[in-house]
């Protein structure tokens, strides 16, 4: 009798190249995504060792992390950033790698363009020198972030030696209420299990609330897996997945498509397959969340308060005190009373067309508070064009939001989009670490709807009570 397997176990097994005795298994990598920040030293390593890129066709590059979001053609004034971008351009040329460059109509955040070009497909192994590679797991792929040494390893061998991770199932029962999004689900999960709750594990998200998510929602959810410490996050492919991939530029065609779909349908975890850990979440109980601290696990319902410090155990108390001190918040303050200075709608977590539609629906007919500077940064040129075709940019601009070019932007502030010291930002990104969006900047993570509503109100407000116009 065949053993019952999880989605992860099936993909893992399909990609085992060798299992040398006493060593980590060697895994084949189907798709390697490359960007400017974590690759230059890897290419140098190849050159030093006289190695080539083994599979240029399976390697795809774009520039996203440090490019400005000013209109394209504006010169890059940061010379070190310009040098790094130039290094990627010359490395791609030298090693024969496809590059979606600054001026490409397909440029965008690496985790946005992979799926929208159909590069990301169910059953694949996908890596990138970026921790949010977990995003691609939304398609039922095994996708994880790696460091630069491993980038070099994959460039040279198209393989990685990997210790076998453990498996975790997060079963989300019920359905999410109106105004409660995939982002809130992700924040709710991290708030419950902690930022190291899934360390060493690959998460499979399952249950009716996950099934009901669009591909954009699943990408948001899988994207944040790393914030719970997970090696990867995944959702089994289904009809939603197949419909999304169909017709995309790099998706299989004709007979290959039929073969691929048959294979994808065999990937979901077998009934009765076992996981090392199972977590159950009641999706119906979740609400819109806002982070109050300096990691994504420090989260409260929008109707809640900044936590009290007294009564906490020594370790938690110190961490909470440090976080509140950095964030400039008093214990017990109502989340809805926290005023903001900036709003950022964007990042590989929440910059896809559905995210922008949701934010625009909130913004329509309103105006950004006079105290707030708000920007919308589409995830890719494709998202930007689609949004403009639908007139979303007009809604944002009429409401006083800046409409910018695609890139990682203020998620990590490697480009000129940064917070000033002390500025407080409602952000749809993924990390509220100290200084993440600019030294001294204070980041609160929220969904796109909650960010848009905060921009207009000037403070956090419960989207479930919003007056849509």
């Amino acid at each position, binding site marked *: 009798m065949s053993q019952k397997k999880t989605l992860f176990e099936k993909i893992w097994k399909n990609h085992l*190249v*060798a299992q040398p005795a*006493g060593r*980590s298994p*060697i895994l*084949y990598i*189907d798709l390697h995504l490359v960007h400017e*920040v*974590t690759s*230059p030293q890897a290419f*140098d390593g190849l050159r030093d*060792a006289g*190695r080539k890129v083994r*599979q240029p*066709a399976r390697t795809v590059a774009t520039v996203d*992390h440090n490019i400005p979001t000013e209109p394209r053609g504006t010169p890059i004034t*940061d010379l*070190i*950033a310009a*040098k*790094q971008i130039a*290094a990627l351009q010359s490395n791609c040329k030298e090693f024969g790698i*496809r590059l979606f460059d600054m001026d490409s109509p397909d440029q965008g955040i690496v985790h946005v363009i992979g799926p929208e070009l159909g*590069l990301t497909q169910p059953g694949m192994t996908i890596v990138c*020198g*970026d*921790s949010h590679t977990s995003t691609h797991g939304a398609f039922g792929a095994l996708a994880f972030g*790696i*460091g*630069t*040494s*491993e980038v*070099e390893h994959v460039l*040279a*061998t*198209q*393989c*990685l*030696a990997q*210790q076998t*991770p453990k498996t975790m199932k997060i079963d989300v029962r019920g359905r999410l209420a109106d105004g409660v999004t995939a982002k809130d689900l992700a924040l709710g999960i991290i708030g419950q299990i902690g*930022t*190291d709750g899934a*360390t060493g594990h690959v998460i499979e998200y399952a249950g009716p609330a996950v099934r009901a998510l669009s591909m954009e929602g699943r990408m948001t959810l899988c994207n944040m897996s790393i914030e719970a410490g997970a*090696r990867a996050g995944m959702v089994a492919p289904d009809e939603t997945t197949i419909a999304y991939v169909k017709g995309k*530029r*790099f998706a299989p*065609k004709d007979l290959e498509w039929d073969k691929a779909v048959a294979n994808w349908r065999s990937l979901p975890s077998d009934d009765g397959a076992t996981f090392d850990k199972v977590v159950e979440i009641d999706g119906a109980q979740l609400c819109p969340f806002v982070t109050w601290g300096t*990691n994504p696990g420090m989260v409260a319902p929008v109707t809640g308060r900044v936590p009290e410090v007294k009564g906490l155990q020594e*370790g938690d108390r110190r*961490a909470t005190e440090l976080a509140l001190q950095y964030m400039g918040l008093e214990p017990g303050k109502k989340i809805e009373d926290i005023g903001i200075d900036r709003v950022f709608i964007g990042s590989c977590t929440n910059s896809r067309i559905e995210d922008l539609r949701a934010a625009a629906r909130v913004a329509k007919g309103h105006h950004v508070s006079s105290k707030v500077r708000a920007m919308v940064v589409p995830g890719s040129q494709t998202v930007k064009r689609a949004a403009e075709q639908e007139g979303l940019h007009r809604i944002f601009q009429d409401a006083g939001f800046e409409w910018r070019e695609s890139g990682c932007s203020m998620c*990590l*502030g*490697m480009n000129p989009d940064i917070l000033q010291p002390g500025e407080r930002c409602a952000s749809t990104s993924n*990390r509220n*670490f100290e*200084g*993440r969006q600019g*030294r*001294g900047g204070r980041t609160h993570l929220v969904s796109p709807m909650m960010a848009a509503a905060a921009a207009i109100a000037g403070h956090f407000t419960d989207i479930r009570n919003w007056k849509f116009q």
Partner: protein
Amino acid sequence: MKPFTVHRGRVAPLDRVNVDTDQIIPKQFLKRIERTGFGQFVFYDWRFGADGKKNPDFVLHEPRYQGASILVAGKNFGCGSSREHAVWALADFGFRAVISSSFADIFANNSTKNGFLAVRLHEGEVAQLMRRAQESDDYRLTIDLEQCEVRDEQGFRAKFSVDEFIRHCLLNGLDDIGLTLQHEAEIAAYETLHPAPATLKAS
């Protein structure tokens, strides 16, 4: 890669949990295309004020921790971004190892590629080392990868575990690309069965 066998050195305590890689090496320093020279930027926002002046209160600036080569830190060290620059910065600053009760996966992985040791001990043991480093001058530890043991001269002794293959690579300073390429025949066989998709080949 520089081998790691036995290292004895001064210990600095960083009594914080969830130290993320954004703290270890802030983003403005990731634009460099070299692999070296990141040490000057390690823990930059904690070590230096917004005006660029040294923050004398930060633990690594205390005279008794100068020259420390072993860092003891709270749980979930190295969480967040995959930036290997974090390990490069710690190593370039002079650290050979970090001791914590848990590490983020990618950070731990990156460490092994740089002859840098992420040593996992029990929470109680880490707390004990933290206290000793805080309470004494010139507190030193020996990290022995051959015996998988951390010890001091006052009788502290704790075992740690490392994946056997990773330990082998670290002890011998092996480049694991070379090791994977020993499986060229298997990789080639896999690629014959699984060629790159036609859609990717056409440009």
